[in-house]
């Protein structure tokens, strides 16, 4: 008995001693004092106690740059340009940076520690991102695994964004803050509410959370983010290609487009696996009746028996796109879906003579 107590006591004692040594060492060794963080030539400036990561410092001062993994260095979203005070590129960053990025000082904010005065450059767009609180006003299942969620904005009560941009939803109770990106599917002119499409991923933190919340529950998200930029030129044809649950940015783009230019031409291509995955079809066919410039194509990629009544396309969506593009039209394209789909469609669009800069994509 005394042996067991002695063993427990000794183990605890040694652990405590080691922890105490480490704490003392930390307080004496790791002390960087107060550091000055300056963003975009001083347009935003704040002071930060050294020793934390740049991402933590930015979030603490309400600069919400995108970050999906919560600072673990696994998503590569939190890229910023560090002009001074960032030190060398770390091995943990190299998988996410290409050569030209490394040369020009792009770093992952979650890996850079604030140890001295830091100068940063962040796209001005991101500085407008803010933190929002919203309440779930309604929800329904679009397919067996995609939930459509309508949120009323509480604080601030308005969200200005460009069609195709996304927000990052905070998953609560995970210790470290975990954020996941979802595109806004409600139209950009509808500034008091935000609609998201969430596909349930088994074991996924955010999708499980967003599928479980009920009407009246509040969520926190930051945004808007994203570089989708709709062309103002009324002659430009808009091509939207989505797959799986990649409908959200397309819905926003199409609704916003026809609110402003009822005559514009726009085509929506949407790829699904089976009939059960098809949604919004009536909505778009209805829109097409009201706006002759709009055309919608759904395609099923999986061969199943219930397809007998299917009157849309069959096969992968990039083949549908390839069949329908006449040459010589000025176009802008927005792609959102699985990576393989985005790659295949990009290939088709480039082959049709489009410029890379006119193709915006969001692969997941």
């Amino acid at each position, binding site marked *: 008995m005394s*042996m067991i107590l002695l063993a427990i006591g*000794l*183990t605890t004692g040694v652990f405590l001693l*080691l922890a105490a040594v480490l704490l003392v*060492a930390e307080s004496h060794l790791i002390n960087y004092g107060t550091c000055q963080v300056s963003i975009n030539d001083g347009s935003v400036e704040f002071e930060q106690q050294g020793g934390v990561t740049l991402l933590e410092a930015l979030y603490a001062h309400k600069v919400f740059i995108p970050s999906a993994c919560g600072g673990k260095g696994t998503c590569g979203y939190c890229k910023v340009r560090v002009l001074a005070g960032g030190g060398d590129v770390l091995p943990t960053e190299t998988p996410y940076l290409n050569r030209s990025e490394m040369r020009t000082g792009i770093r992952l904010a979650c890996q850079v520690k604030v140890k001295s005065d830091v100068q940063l450059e962040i796209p001005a767009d991101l500085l407008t991102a803010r933190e929002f609180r919203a309440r779930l006003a309604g929800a329904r299942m679009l397919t067996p695994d995609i939930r459509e969620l309508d949120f009323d904005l509480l604080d601030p009560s308005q969200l200005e964004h460009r069609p195709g941009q996304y927000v990052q939803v905070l998953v609560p109770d995970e210790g470290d803050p975990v954020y996941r990106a979802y595109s806004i599917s409600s139209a950009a002119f509808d500034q008091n509410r935000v609609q998201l499409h969430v596909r349930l991923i088994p074991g996924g933190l955010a999708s499980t959370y967003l599928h479980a919340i009920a009407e009246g529950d509040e969520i926190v998200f930051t945004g808007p983010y994203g570089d989708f930029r709709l062309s103002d030129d009324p002659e430009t044809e808009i091509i939207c290609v989505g797959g799986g649950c990649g409908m959200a940015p397309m819905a926003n783009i199409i609704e916003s487009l026809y609110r402003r230019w009822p005559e514009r031409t726009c085509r929506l291509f949407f790829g699904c696996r089976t009939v059960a995955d098809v949604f919004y079809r009536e909505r778009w066919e209805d829109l097409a009746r009201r706006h002759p410039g709009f055309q919608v194509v759904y395609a099923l990629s999986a061969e199943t028996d219930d397809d007998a009544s299917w009157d849309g396309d069959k096969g992968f969506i990039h083949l549908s796109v390839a069949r329908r593009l006449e040459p010589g039209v000025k176009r802008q394209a927005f792609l959102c879906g699985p990576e393989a789909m985005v790659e295949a469609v990009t290939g088709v669009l480039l082959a049709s003579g489009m410029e890379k800069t006119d193709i915006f994509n969001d692969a997941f």
Partner: protein
Amino acid sequence: MNPTSPLVILAASILTNNILLAGFLGMCSFLACSSRLETAFGLGAAVTFVMVCTTTLNYLLYHYVLVPLGLEFLAYILFIAVIAAFVQFVEMVIERFSPKLYHALGIFLPLITVNCAILGVSLFMVIRDYNGLQSAAFGLGGGLGFLLAIMLMAGLREKMGYSNVPVPLRGTAIMMLVTGVIAMTFMGFAGMIKVQ
């Protein structure tokens, strides 16, 4: 008490009883961090330093605390705790006084915590009943042996980049084969010194 001279232990643990090539401990970092000579050297040097210090610390802990109290069975858990804490401490010291070296070692430094070769050396020291000086020599030799093996591997891998490796063997498979061949050549040293 083990009668072997510390110098013999030092030489033996580098060549004949190389912790990596004879004991096959610490394989994970050996395979993961041997793609470039530079990082291999950084990791090897860090492992050597940590090994010397933790072996000595663990020797003191074992013979002056655990043996008198009759709690030798706690060796495993306490050795690991000492190693983990020491690596943290070293990390802080290096970060404070040589940020350059800290960045050069990067992720490899914390990874040393879970390098089984380091725990292995501490445990062998107990099994073989070494005294303080012998333990320090064993730690130093074990570390240098690790450094030697990982540098050899890194050198070969840099060369291998230009060779035509059959497709099914590319990657880890060819590295395991190469490790085996290096280990066999090190067996040639085995006749020189007999250590137990």
